[in-house]
């Protein structure tokens, strides 16, 4: 995959499959520490300890259509290539926390990519789920919370095409503003 935002979408799709009602996505870019941190946190069904130990193994999956699951193993591989690492914490019935770290200066680091499209895709995937997205770039911070959006929408569905179009533009503009150096 060519963008971090696609890895994030993939991990968050796992959260949806796990029945999450709330997903928190956090991007933390700290230039002074040369560190990019990606966090996906959910309140899905969580994993058994036994499964958790082998979750980064590409031959581990819950899916029935095929025997390999590549998402998390790719994520870990990329993080390690970029001088960082990935870890996962999960409790059965409570939720799962995935965290990846990357050196910003690493030549192997791929672009963050189209985060707005990732968030819109998640909203389409399940408009009931609440998504909190936080991006921190050094001193600057931008927060996006579907709970807040739904309050304003007051009965109009968040999945209406006109709303999604506006949300995408809103996210794009605000992200650009935060990411500007």
């Amino acid at each position, binding site marked *: *995959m060519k963008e971090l935002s*696609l890895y994030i*979408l*993939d991990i968050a*799709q796992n959260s949806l*499959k796990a029945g999450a009602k709330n997903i928190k996505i956090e991007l933390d870019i700290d230039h002074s520490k040369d560190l990019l941190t990606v966090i996906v946190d959910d309140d899905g069904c969580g994993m058994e300890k036994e499964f958790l130990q082998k979750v980064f193994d590409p031959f581990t999956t819950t*899916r029935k*259509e*095929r025997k390999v*699951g*590549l*998402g998390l193993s*790719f994520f870990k591989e990329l993080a390690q290539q970029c001088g960082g690492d990935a870890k996962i914490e999960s409790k059965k019935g409570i939720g799962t926390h995935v965290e990846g770290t990357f050196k910003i200066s690493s030549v192997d680091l791929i672009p963050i990519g*189209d985060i707005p*499209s*990732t968030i*819109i*895709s998640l909203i*389409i*995937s399940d408009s009931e789920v609440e998504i909190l997205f936080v991006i921190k770039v050094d001193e600057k911070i931008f927060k996006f919370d579907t709970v*807040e*959006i739904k309050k*304003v*929408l*007051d*009965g*109009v569905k968040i*999945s*209406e*095409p*006109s*709303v*999604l*179009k*506006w949300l*995408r*533009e*809103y996210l794009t*503009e*605000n992200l650009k*503003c935060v990411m500007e150096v």
Partner: protein
Amino acid sequence: MKSIEELEKIRRETLEKVNLRKDRNGIRITVGMATCGIAAGARPVMMAILDELGKRNITDVVVAETGCIGMCKYEPMVDVYIPGQEKVTYIKVDENKARQIVAEHVVNGHPIKEWTISNVE
């Protein structure tokens, strides 16, 4: 710069449109969004479908995601369900194809047979 306050305007406009329309057709479009689908380019396909529906002011079509159905080499895959008709599965869809599927199949009612799974089976 866009702010949340602007959303209120979108809400009012959308509400008017929603009141005007009746859910007459119940058309459903699904995009495969498992790891295989995402890696093959499902996300831009979904964005293109949304954009095309938006441009044409079509609001009564449901766009949704689906998981992996075990035919990863044919991803990105898009299903179009029209009530009373058989489901049509498109394979190896890209942004351009996605837009044409919306125009030809969803709007005009003519499935594009060359791009469907039945063409390879």
